[in-house]
């Protein structure tokens, strides 16, 4: 994270290749995990891998790691509101039938 002095940060090509390999390994790992029965953990592991892959793309391919605090705020804000959207909606759907008050 840095302010304006890093506007023209050029990411070394080796970083791009490493991230590419990590993404491919992550894809293979997701497929492999899907074929073995881990009960409720299957989906947790697959989504954890997906979130990790997305984070790598955002930080390195999309240069957020080298961007200003303002960009971090935009990215962080979008994740925050995405979580509000998903968590609070599911919270309501899962808990609505539990109790009736009054």
């Amino acid at each position: 994270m840095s302010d304006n002095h890093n506007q023209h940060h050029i990411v070394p090509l080796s970083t791009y290749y490493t991230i590419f390999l990590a993404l491919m390994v992550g894809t293979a790992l997701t497929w492999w995990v899907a074929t073995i029965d881990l009960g409720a953990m299957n989906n947790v592991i697959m989504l954890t891998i997906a979130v990790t892959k997305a984070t790598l793309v955002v930080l390195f391919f999309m240069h957020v790691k080298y961007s200003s605090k303002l960009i971090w705020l935009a990215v962080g804000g979008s994740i925050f509101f995405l979580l509000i959207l998903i968590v609070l909606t599911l919270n309501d759907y899962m808990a609505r039938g539990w109790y009736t008050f009054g």
Partner: protein
Amino acid sequence: MSNGAAVAHDAHAHHPALAHHFESLDAQKEASVLGMWLFLVTEILFFGGALTAYMIYRTWYPDAFAVASSEIAILPGAINTAVLILSSLTMALAVHAAQTGERGKILVFIAITMVLGAAFLGIKAYEYHEKYVEGHIPGLGLPFRFEEEYYRPAQIFFSIYFVLTGLHALHMIIGLGIMTWMLVLTRKGVITPEYYAPIEISGLYWHFVDIVWIFLFPLLYLIGRHVHHVG
């Protein structure tokens, strides 16, 4: 007064790509990147809404979703995941070439990115055709074939499948349009190491579409696969 300012301005040599309301090319690029990110924020919440619909229906019909998801062949989806990740790499390499001012490389890497994007859409079209052959397209008056127990919730799963993959494919098509535009800008010589924001923010869009697929692949193709070993 305004005349004097204009004269003073003309006396000031500046980069042809620098718009008048920006102090510097750096400030201009920061504004472009922020603007693209703000657009992507709306995109994240847009796809987030569709994914929330997926999650709610999956909590309602977990078995139907597992069975219906297992009907989708993994291989084309996995190949497409690899194709998109590779296209993200070539996009990143195009931005790198723009930063170092290698115009030939920008053109080559954007062209490869476009070929990979087109390959993705081709494989997607093949998959859609498979769904048609298997009778897995809900609505449109087409015959929907599925085991009796999950007949209706399976249609919900495939409706969500087509909405999510369809919206994603639409983004890919728009991405191909943007990349064509970038080829033209680069050929015209507009893109330089001092001014490469168009390539950079087009890349942001392309990577975002890649990220959407990174989530769609496990959610649509792999969920419930460990329970129902079909295909």
